[in-house]
């Protein structure tokens, strides 16, 4: 790590409309850096590990701030803070899963300024990468974590491809579970991407965590009515209960009908580079009662195909246990 910790000289724009922001983002491209709450920005800059030339502060854009009810669900402005998400009645009443996930992010002060967009678009937390090393994710030739002696306790179990970083986003798992859609703007227009496709693994793009490219701005997140008021389960296990990223997290949404699970979405966090849909569990529990017996039957499916590294073997039992809890619906 460098000896640096003051902010480098950098330009700053504070556009007040999405159009202006999109224009700036498009023209600056790789030289620009979008600023939401900034909580995943300043560390990079202070370390000189990333060197954008211009910051585009989006917080002045009012249209990206509100939480509104739509014909099919709700739309959350990308700049809505995590604290706002934990308090908003629409979200806490209908999509408590998201509120719970947002409430477990980092610390109160970070939630107070950290935005939903920032939380889903944040970069990998692999300590090697964060140190500014030139690993695969930074455009280099190798991974320091995935080696016989790498310190990879917090790294991935599944779907690694050279890079073994995991998704750090707590809200990301919830959004995938809720079948949210991400609204992305760039100079050529708007596109809507399913949350599940929003996150990309290293096999597809080793230097990006999401589909967002240069010039793209995530403007809003839409949550369909489909899962409103469903039965939810969220849990995040981290070393410390503040600041720390998940060792494993679980987000689940279930619809019950006549005492059995009619439909379910289960998503695990921090086990691969993207939120991991647990489709095998979903189909295994469909039509079954939501109880301990069902949970015990299916939990071990969660880790099928896992390839543990040196120090992260514990994530397998931990993941199974969290899946068990999510399926049975309670802790004790």
């Amino acid at each position, binding site marked *: 790590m460098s000896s640096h910790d003051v902010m480098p000289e950098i330009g700053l724009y504070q556009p007040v409309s999405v159009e202006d922001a999109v224009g700036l983002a498009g023209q600056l491209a790789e030289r620009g850096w979008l600023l939401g709450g900034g909580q995943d920005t300043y560390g990079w800059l202070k370390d000189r590990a990333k060197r954008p030339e211009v910051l585009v502060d989006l917080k002045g854009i009012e249209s990206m701030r509100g939480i509104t009810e739509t014909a099919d669900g709700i739309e959350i402005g990308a700049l809505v803070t995590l604290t706002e998400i934990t308090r908003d009645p629409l979200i806490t009443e209908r999509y408590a899963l998201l509120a719970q996930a947002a409430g477990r992010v980092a610390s109160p002060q970070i939630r107070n300024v950290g935005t939903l967009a920032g939380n889903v678009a944040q970069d990998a937390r692999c300590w090697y990468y964060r140190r500014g090393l030139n690993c695969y994710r930074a455009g280099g*030739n190798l991974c*320091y974590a995935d080696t016989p002696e*790498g310190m990879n306790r917090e790294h991935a179990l599944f779907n690694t491809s*050279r890079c073994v970083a995991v998704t750090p986003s707590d809200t990301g798992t919830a959004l995938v579970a809720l079948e949210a859609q991400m609204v992305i703007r760039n100079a050529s227009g708007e596109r809507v991407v399913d949350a599940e496709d929003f996150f990309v693994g290293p096999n*597809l793009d080793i230097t990006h965590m999401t589909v967002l490219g240069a010039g793209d701005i995530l403007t809003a997140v839409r949550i369909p009515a489909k899962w409103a008021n469903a039965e939810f389960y969220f849990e995040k296990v981290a070393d410390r209960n503040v600041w720390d990223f998940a060792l494993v997290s679980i987000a689940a949404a279930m619809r019950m009908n006549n005492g059995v699970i009619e439909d379910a979405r289960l998503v695990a966090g921090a086990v691969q580079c993207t939120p991991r849909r647990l489709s095998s569990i979903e189909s295994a529990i469909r039509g079954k009662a939501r109880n301990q017996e069902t949970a015990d039957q299916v939990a071990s499916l969660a880790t099928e195909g896992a390839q543990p590294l040196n120090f992260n073997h514990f994530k397998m039992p931990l993941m199974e246990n969290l899946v068990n809890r999510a399926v049975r619906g309670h802790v004790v």
Partner: protein
Amino acid sequence: MELIRYRNDVWGEEVILGVSWDLLWVVSVTAFVLLAAHAIFMAALAKKKALPSSEGKRINRHDAIDRAFHWIMAGSVLVLIATGIAPIVGLRISWLNIHWIAGLVLTFVCVFHIIRAMFWQDFKSMLIGPADFKEPFDETIKPGKYSFEQKGLHWAMTVLVIAVAATGIILFLNINSPWWQRPSVTDEGSLGIYFLLHGIATLGLVAFSAVHIYFALRPEKRFYTRSMVTGWISEAEMKENHDANKWKPE
């Protein structure tokens, strides 16, 4: 534009990372421009000769197994180039597994080809001798089985493919595979050199593949392409382009 990409290693020491992919554009554009120029030149200025007839007696030029080798090699090279370039140009496909599988296929096929060429084929037909160098400048000299250009292209491809395969295998050893876990990298500088050589070979492959495909598609050479599909050329094509004294097809 830079030619070589450098990075700092884990201890802050500057090491080579690989070839600059800007060169990919340079190579592609250069190849395109040169080939386009050639096409224009041929279309506008070159003496137009009537193409020899493809009718008549068929002469076997390539055995089925060699044709299969060729197309497997061609296919794997194209797949390798496509999958290798995809992440460079920002195309999001899960390229790596395809890439190394194609690389293994290419390697195995090349090994087979080399062995076969040395012991079962007429290896000498591909050798370039001092006399061959007169061939391009003297229209009266006709080649044996392979023209000087074909030999040149073949040997260039040989060097490039061996280079790309050899470096590719080293790089392959540095990622996880079904057979092993990736090792620790103790010398990032060496790794960078392998990437550099792999990249340079790739650039060459892209260029020579372009040249090869271009000529394969040219009207006056198309019968060679056909021969690589069907195995034969016509007697007329043989006479027009080859010296029967130097190449005595069975």
